[in-house]
């Protein structure tokens, strides 16, 4: 069965979705990712969906779920590189993914992650160091 690789990069986890998502793959990703976050104690998750061209409401909801789950496991999630067509589709489906943070590309996404993790340490909101 095909699998979406989860790369570890320092304190962050990198997920690059390069195949068309189907429901089982999405659920497997959700499983793997939550497992990896708790194993590695990652502070941030970056999901790159720049090659994702087709979405449906299930995938949209899955993105939202992953973000919420990571949040519970104390990791920030940033979704980067969404295609215009995908964004329009999600909006037309009525999914604005309110809990998900987004960035234009991996660069901007990493910056956002660093900022939010740094900010968390500074202010100590629910950080694991306290």
């Amino acid at each position, binding site marked *: 069965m095909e699998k979406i690789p989860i790369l570890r990069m320092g304190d962050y986890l990198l997920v690059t979705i390069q195949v068309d998502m189907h429901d089982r793959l999405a659920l497997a990703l959700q499983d793997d990712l939550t497992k990896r976050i708790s194993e590695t104690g990652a502070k941030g998750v970056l999901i790159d969906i720049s090659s994702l061209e087709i979405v449906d409401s299930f995938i949209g909801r899955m993105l939202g779920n992953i973000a919420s789950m990571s949040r519970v496991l104390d990791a920030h999630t940033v*979704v*980067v*590189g*969404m*295609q*215009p067509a*995908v*964004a*329009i589709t*999600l*909006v*037309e489906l009525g999914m*604005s*993914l309110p809990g*998900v943070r*987004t*960035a*234009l*590309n991996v660069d*901007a*996404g990493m910056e956002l992650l660093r900022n939010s993790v740094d900010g968390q340490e500074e202010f100590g909101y629910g950080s694991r160091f306290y």
Partner: protein
Amino acid sequence: MATVPNQTSNLGAIIAQHRDEILAGWLRDMIGTTRRSDLIKESELQTQCSQFLALLAQATAQSTDVQSAPFERLREMLSEISRTRTIQGFTARECATFIFSIKRPLFTAIRESLGKDSNAMADEMWRTSELVDGLGLFTTEAYLKTREETIKRQQEEMLELSTPVVKLWEGILALPLIGTLDSARTQVVMESLLEAIVQTNSKVAIIDITGVPTVDTVVAQHLLKTVTAARLMGADCIISGVRPQIAQTIVHLGINLLDVTTKATLADAFILSLKKTGFKFTRVQKTESKDGRTEE
């Protein structure tokens, strides 16, 4: 149409026989009603009329159904006439009357040739009347079609004209909207904005609605959709150019724009976006240089 072939051919024969009289009578009738000498030359009209008569005679020799194959050339000619007349500025009524005014000269001709046989005359007149009505309706339809094409073309042109995405600064885009937003336009606006965001790698997009006359729930919905889509891609959206009236309307309608950054003017939005992208502006004091010129 249940007409006996040799009876239908009568009209063609009658037209051929009385061609000159019909033509003269037709032109005379048109002068009496709707000949627009300011829009069309007499010689041109005469050519059109005689061409029409010739085609009509040919077609009626085979059929009396306007939609049938023998009438194809006549239909082509009528569409062409309608098209040119629409452009010349004729009204729909004037276009249709061009055809309807042939009735009287045709009826006169029929009466002359079939006057003795009243049954045949009535039949022929009925057929002719139906035929001319059909042709008249066809002309009106062609006229309307031309008009609709014009309207559609202009709409498309407006759609393309009115959605420019402007790059204001490194990483800052502006989209000045002019005119009412409907679903089709929002789609174009959204697509061009999102494409531009990807191409220019912009973090902030300003949607300026100074040129949008009214904001109702539908327009607001479309705006929110665009903002959300931009956010999903990782760009911030600011709505600027909210006039006092529009602000009042939005509140009265109970539209929730709280999640969206709104600014009164494009300048305010621009300053905010510069701040967001990390730029800082200071005014340089003007100083007198040694040679007396003012420099910055």
